[in-house]
């Protein structure tokens, strides 16, 4: 989906690419606690700070709960605020993520997606993101290091937009993106700063017009205040689209809320999020070269979920498999639930496939197996891809 206009490329891991975006954004405050696989992000950013290449206040807090708590205070006081975490760190943060969204604190967090314990594991899946699915925070899922960089710049504008004012998580697959080096095109610092602009908190905590933040709300007002987040998420859909256009003017690249890949005349399609889209696109290309009408829909914005666009993109695809890198024991997996809701009343046959939990590899032959299972309408898609099963 991108057309390169940049003159030079740097070899960077996704973590380093995010750190460069943070250096260019130059947040005022970064309260942070390290956790694998987020660590390279903050390690690289801390080096920028100590080398004088970023001027923000790096606060070494004692936990992720404290990191997000400090971030809420900082953002509402009027400081541009960023942090980063993964897995258990996000689990510990989760309580305050809900509060950050309710208090409309525009904090940008880089999330190196990692499986939640237990068993304890350090590798990628999306279970940590799904833990805060209903928090009111925006979640953008990227495919590679380049998109991680672009999305971090965009996230700041999205979070701080006066119609949005919500926390934004830039979700990059742990290790696959955070630790893998790829050629990345960075904007010149002055252009990145021009795009990002200044943060203006609409109602500062202090100053000439001080405010009380985070009030108590009883049954007479809680419902209305929660509903503000629904409206902010709805506004975020349009703001995100216009920011994608605006950023494309700087970078020559577009990362849309959803990416339809060779979907126009597809008879079979996969829906998924994150780095595995790269593998799946190769398989789509391979199957297309052998005249199989297959396609892919990659969800870039999980919250807000682009429901209408998903419905339109899949309107004429008869067989669809939704690949979740997270499960919901006793219920439907989260991405499947969203797609099923988007397509309700439609005619597509939907299958749910859970894959890649705890960093389980996702090979091209796995993708092909899912496409094959969709081809045989009497067949069953593997509900748990690659799971060893049987006595």
């Amino acid at each position, binding site marked *: 989906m991108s057309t390169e206009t940049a003159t030079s490329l740097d070899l960077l891991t996704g973590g380093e690419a995010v750190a460069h975006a943070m250096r260019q954004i130059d947040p005022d405050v970064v309260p942070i606690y390290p956790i694998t696989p987020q660590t390279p992000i903050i390690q690289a950013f801390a080096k920028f700070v100590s080398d004088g290449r970023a001027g923000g206040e790096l606060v070494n807090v004692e936990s992720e709960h404290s990191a997000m708590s400090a971030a809420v205070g900082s953002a509402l006081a009027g400081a541009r605020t960023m942090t980063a975490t993964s897995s258990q760190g996000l689990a510990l943060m989760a309580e305050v993520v809900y509060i950050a969204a309710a208090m409309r604190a525009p904090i940008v967090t880089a999330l190196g997606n990692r499986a939640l314990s237990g068993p304890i594991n350090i590798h990628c899946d999306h279970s940590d993101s799904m833990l805060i699915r209903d928090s009111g925070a925006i979640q953008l899922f990227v495919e590679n290091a380049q998109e991680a960089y672009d999305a971090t710049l965009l996230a700041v504008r999205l979070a701080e937009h006066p119609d949005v004012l919500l926390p934004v998580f830039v979700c990059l697959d742990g290790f696959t993106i955070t630790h893998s080096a790829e050629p990345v095109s960075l904007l010149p610092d002055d252009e990145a700063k021009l795009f990002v602009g200044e943060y203006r908190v*609409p109602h500062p905590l202090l100053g000439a017009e*001080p*405010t009380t933040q985070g009030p108590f709300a009883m049954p007479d007002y809680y419902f209305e205040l929660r509903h503000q987040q629904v409206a902010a998420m709805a506004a975020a859909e349009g703001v995100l689209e216009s920011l994608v256009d605006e950023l494309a003017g700087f970078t020559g690249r577009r990362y849309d809320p959803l990416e339809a890949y060779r979907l126009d005349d597809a008879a079979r399609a996969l829906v998924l999020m994150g780095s595995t889209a790269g593998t799946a696109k190769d398989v789509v290309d391979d199957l297309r070269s052998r005249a199989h009408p297959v396609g892919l829909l990659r969800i870039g914005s999980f919250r807000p979920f682009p429901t209408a666009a998903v419905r339109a993109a899949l309107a004429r695809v008869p067989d669809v498999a939704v690949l979740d890198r997270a499960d919901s024991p006793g219920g439907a997996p989260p991405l499947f639930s969203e797609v099923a809701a988007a397509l309700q009343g439609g005619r597509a046959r939907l299958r749910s496939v859970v894959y890649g939990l705890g960093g389980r590899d996702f090979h091209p032959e796995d993708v092909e197996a899912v496409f094959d299972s969709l081809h045989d309408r009497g067949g069953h898609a593997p509900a748990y891809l690659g799971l060893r099963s049987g006595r």
Partner: protein
Amino acid sequence: MAELRRWQQLPPGGIVTPGAPRARTGGWRTGVKPRVRLEACVNCLLCWLYCPDAAVRVEGETFVGFDYDYCKGCELCAEMCPAGAIEMVPEETRVD
């Protein structure tokens, strides 16, 4: 009671801006409320320090009495008073 506002009419995050009507938090009080005998008060202001809300009225640096709109009847002031000037009395007791 003012008419309840709709969600569109509330500031983002429900923040409270200058000039907002004061919410009276004393409505939770049940049973008892503090009464002060100012002639026994030594003006140590421990009641003001310990009051978890804003029920202790101070003019300048002098304790002048209670604002029951903000008193929840927690009894901390009466407990802390070193001079025995504050006592808890039934809600219906008339106080000046």
